[in-house]
């Protein structure tokens, strides 16, 4: 597609469940970022991939959060044992190398009941 695609757009789950959020970046973009945004706050960095490897995962809040990008394109953010505090919009962005701008998807809104 022309832009960054994120699925699902909305996800409602119960506390303790496992959730996967998918990001399909712009074709050819080597860098992929995950952010989390709570209401009224700026996006909070979670993890950054360069190709298949996580170049920086310092923003992942704890070991319940994990992300993969096995073929250097699509990425999946995985959240285990969800908690109510995980409720937020999860944003994915991609970019080329160099001074390329970040292109964001529309986000996946996660609600943990």
């Amino acid at each position, binding site marked *: 597609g022309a832009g960054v695609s994120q699925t699902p757009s909305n996800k409602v789950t119960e506390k303790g469940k496992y959730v996967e959020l998918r990001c399909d970046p712009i074709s050819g973009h080597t860098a992929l970022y995950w952010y989390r945004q709570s209401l009224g706050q700026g996006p*909070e960095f979670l993890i950054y991939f360069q190709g298949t490897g996580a170049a920086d995962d310092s923003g992942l809040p704890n070991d319940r959060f994990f992300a993969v990008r096995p073929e250097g394109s699509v990425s999946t953010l995985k959240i285990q044992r969800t908690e109510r505090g995980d409720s937020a919009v999860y944003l994915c962005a991609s970019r080329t190398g160099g001074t390329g701008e970040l292109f964001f998807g529309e986000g996946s809104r996660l609600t943990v009941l």
Partner: protein
Amino acid sequence: LAKTTQPISMDSYEGQEVNITCSHNNIATNDYITWYQQFPSQGPRFIIQGYKTKVTNEVASLFIPADRKSSTLSLPRVSLSDTAVYYCLVGDSYGQNFVFGPGTRLSVLP
């Protein structure tokens, strides 16, 4: 990573020029300055990027003084549709965890 400081909110009226200033006192030599715009229920969208002096595109201008410790985003003749949150980011060209601050919430009034 260079940290940025912006006003939390600003109000303006339609047709006015709006200037939003961002402070980044510990900007590094390789860092670029990038501004993003975010509407409710959407991801941020790139507005403009610069390294020094002045950059202009079809929607905005970016002014960066010689010391690069601050930058000013200028939106000419704003309209109601410019109501959004504006973020200033600082980072180098080879990818890192670009850090978003709380941004500046611009409200354009009729």
